């Protein structure tokens, strides 16, 4: 009986696979359509050097555009700083002050000055990268695991450097073994501390990547419903939900940049914290 069910399921699975392959050949598969939009594809072809493809992908291109926009925007806004800013300078200053006073200062206190530049740069870069995926022809660079892993590695190194700067090298290493615990417990506690140091930053990379990619997959999957029905009469219903998802995506873009910044600040403050 069970073998019959399993055989039936396996035949069914093959049929599904064949149907999917058939659909993919004719360009009707939602999966192929979605993967094409969320994966990086080269814009400028460059040669492969030592096994590393140096082609400029759309994600790299959009990171350059975002960096240029940030440099240009801040340069133009604060070229002649005024006591009471208006226009672009006002908008940027309100964001900077919000991040400084509500995110960095409560976590880092009097150390805030040293780490505010990194955290603010990360915030603005991530925010604009997230939002870049929502403009036509745009691509979300933070929807690429390589980009988010690099950003998380930056935070990882900043956390290590902050700890070493505060406690000295040996002093920083000794924070991995909390004082006042029995000797035998140290064999458990030290590996746990080391693993948690790595996992925290791994989660930082995965969180941003998955949030960005999930929003785009939702929108594209809803969009492919129109193509699955092959009838333009159904299009208003997916479009209404897509509009809602897109607005939600704007909110998520801002929240994820905020979350990345606040978690980086929390990790740095945990690293520079005085022992009890």
């Amino acid at each position: 009986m069970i073998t019959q069910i399993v055989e039936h399921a396996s035949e069914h699975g093959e049929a599904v696979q064949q149907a999917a392959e058939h659909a993919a050949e004719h360009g009707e598969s939602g999966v192929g359509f979605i993967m094409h939009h969320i994966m990086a594809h080269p814009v400028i072809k460059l040669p492969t050097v030592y096994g590393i493809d140096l082609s400029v992908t759309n994600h790299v291109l959009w990171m350059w555009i975002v960096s240029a926009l940030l440099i240009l925007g801040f340069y133009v806004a604060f070229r002649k700083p005024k006591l009471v800013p208006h226009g672009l300078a006002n908008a940027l200053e309100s964001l900077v002050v919000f991040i400084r006073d509500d995110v960095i200062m409560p976590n880092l206190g009097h150390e805030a000055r040293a780490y505010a530049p990194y955290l603010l740069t990360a915030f603005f870069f991530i925010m604009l990268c997230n939002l870049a995926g929502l403009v036509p022809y745009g691509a979300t660079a933070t929807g690429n695991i390589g980009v988010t892993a690099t950003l998380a590695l930056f935070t990882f190194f900043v956390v290590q450097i902050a700890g070493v700067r505060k406690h000295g090298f040996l002093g920083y290493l000794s924070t991995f073994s909390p004082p006042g615990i029995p000797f035998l417990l140290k064999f458990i506690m030290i590996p746990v501390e080391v693993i948690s140091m790595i996992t925290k930053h791994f989660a930082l990379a995965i969180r941003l990547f998955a949030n960005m990619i999930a929003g785009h997959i939702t929108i594209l999957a809803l969009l492919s419903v129109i193509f699955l029905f092959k009838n333009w009469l159904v299009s208003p219903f997916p479009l209404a939900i897509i509009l809602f998802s897109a607005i939600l995506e704007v909110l998520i873009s801002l929240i994820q940049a905020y979350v990345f910044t606040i978690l980086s600040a929390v990790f740095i403050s945990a690293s520079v914290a005085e022992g009890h």
Partner: protein
Amino acid sequence: MNPTAIAYLAAGFGSAAVTFSAAFGISKLASAAISGIARQPEAAGDIRGAMIITAAMIEGVALLSVVICLLLGFK
């Protein structure tokens, strides 16, 4: 049984489990935070900050599983 069929099945069941557990975690967190704010409205800012950090932790674990489900479903 066909490996592709098992992968699709695992992705479906996996996403269901992820949704269930993430919703459970977030709902517990939100109910505690809202009752905290209702009792002490002056601490709303601090509670909101702590809530967002904790929500991000729950979400991080959930999204890690979502990525695994996506890999199962798309490969």
